[in-house]
């Protein structure tokens, strides 16, 4: 092959590259909310994964001699009342927040799918299951989480359990309503007439239709879970105080706000940015997946 022919082929490949991208990816990349939200989220994931490399100090090491130092070259975001480096605390705190957010999102999705499918397919169980879901949703979310933490005690996995119980009913209701709207469609009736079992219909015809709403709901549950984890930590009923988490650091900053505003300021900024990224992602996905719900 001549050099000219290689050049022609290379330029043709380059010109064809955008067209080769799947349509959904092009639509996704064209949505500013999704791209901005995803970029901020990726930054947080990198911060959490590389916390060991990016941190300048051990976040759990107490250094009373360096307590309440303002931001400087040695301590980028200052130190707290125990002399812990706030930059390192924020980086390690992102691990707890992302762990709680992702795990809660997965558990609520799995639980919501199971409960929603059962309620959507079984007319007998529907009433009972939905009354229980109504009952769970009758509690203000944070109050039910606080009550569950009261009986289970502090701990990361207890926080995840409490938040999954609190947010699962919303996902279950969503899946149920999707099942109910699809169950009576012709192609599902046709599958049933062909002798497919309920489980097969659910897996092959119903669940793929739930992916869109589930993605949107998942991004909001992720955001709520990160915020709720911080609130529980702030109230002293979340992860134990010695674990670096954004809520715990903000709580310790509350005690010294007169002398050292930076202790609570920076973890709060991180929390706001994390919430912003997930809300942008959720809004963007909702606009893409269901244009009827687009906020004008």
């Amino acid at each position: 092959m001549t050099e000219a022919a290689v050049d022609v082929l290379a330029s043709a490949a380059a010109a064809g590259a955008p067209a080769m991208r799947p349509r959904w990816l092009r639509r996704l990349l064209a949505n500013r909310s999704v791209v901005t939200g995803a970029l901020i989220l990726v930054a947080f994931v990198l911060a959490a994964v590389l916390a060991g490399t990016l941190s300048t100090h051990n976040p759990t090491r107490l250094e009373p001699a360096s307590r309440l130092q303002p931001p400087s070259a040695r301590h980028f975001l200052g130190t707290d009342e125990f002399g812990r480096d706030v930059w390192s605390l924020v980086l390690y705190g992102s691990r707890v927040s992302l762990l709680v957010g992702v795990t809660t999102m997965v558990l609520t999705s799995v639980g919501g799918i199971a409960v929603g499918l059962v309620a959507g397919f079984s007319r007998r169980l529907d009433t009972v299951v939905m009354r229980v879901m109504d009952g769970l949703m009758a509690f203000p979310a944070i109050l039910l989480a606080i009550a569950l933490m009261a009986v289970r005690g502090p701990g990361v996995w207890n926080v995840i359990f409490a938040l999954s119980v609190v947010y699962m009913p919303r996902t279950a209701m969503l899946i149920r309503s999707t099942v109910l709207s699809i169950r009576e469609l012709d192609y599902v009736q046709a599958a049933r007439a062909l002798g497919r079992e309920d489980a097969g219909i659910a897996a092959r015809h119903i669940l793929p239709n739930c992916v869109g709403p589930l993605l949107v709901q998942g991004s909001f549950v992720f955001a709520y879970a990160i915020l709720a984890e911080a609130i529980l930590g702030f109230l002293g009923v979340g992860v134990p105080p010695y674990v670096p988490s954004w809520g715990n650091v903000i709580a310790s900053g509350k005690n010294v706000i007169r002398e050292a505003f930076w202790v609570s300021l920076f973890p709060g900024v991180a929390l706001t940015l994390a919430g912003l990224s997930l809300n942008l992602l959720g809004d963007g996905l909702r606009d893409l997946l269901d244009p009827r719900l687009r906020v004008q």
Partner: protein
Amino acid sequence: MGPYLLRRLAAIVPVLAVVVTIVFLLIHLIPGDPVSVMLGPDATPGQIEATRKGLGLDRPIYEQLVGFYGRILRGDLGQSYFLDRPVSQALWERAEPTMVLMLSALVVAIAIGVPSGTVAAACRGSAWDRGLMLISLLGVCIPGFWLSLNFIYFFAVRLGWLPAAGYVSVLTDPAGALRYMVLPAFSLGFNQSALIARISRSCMLEVLQQDYIRTARAKGLSHRAVTWVHAFRNALVPVVTVIGITTAVLIGGAVVTEIVFNIPGLGRLIISAILRRDYPVVQGVVLVTATAYVLINLGVDLLYAMIDPRIRYD
């Protein structure tokens, strides 16, 4: 309206039954024996046994549940382990600060949210619209409890304009109560005002595209008259839903705000009860707030008909 109201009241009975059952189960979810947890590691087997008997925990669980339903129906929420008084009395004493906080926050949320959304919709695409919607997006994402701390730092510590924490009853000193309530109400109401603004804008935009608005404009009515007289009321129906949801969310948010501002309401009561393992108080606060939540949602549904005469509940 009457039959609808009766149907709705009947429909909340099973929901409340589930709520009561969940609240009852909370104490039974404690790993191990709740009495051992309550009495601590130094309790003797005799003390544990006596307390179990005293609380009725030695009886079968279904009997305990039936007994719990019976007590709730009689308005008996039990006795606090630490406050030396019935739970219902403790709740009553702490209800005023929480209700004042919630109402003030609701006023702030509506006063900021509804006009912001309406103005943004009326000036769609302008700098006002973009600015207000950016603020509302941030408002949805900023954690309320962190905003409270920043308010305390700027307005109380740096500027010294308002008290940093505490509570004065509106019944004894209304002016003082207002000073103490400004920061908590704005902290709690700001997040919700952002949500209300986004929904108000969306609803207004929808209404502003209707034919009767075009007719009103064609008649020569001013932009202001079209926006506030013709469009506003019709855009209000979905906004009322959001305001109802907001009221319910404020119940949870008030817990956190009370802790930050040291307000002696239900939020502080439940947190201190949790830390002291005063389970009857935890149950009582959760039960009362959940019931309030359900009733508020019912109230919102009924309010629709008052705002929009096209909605009829037959």
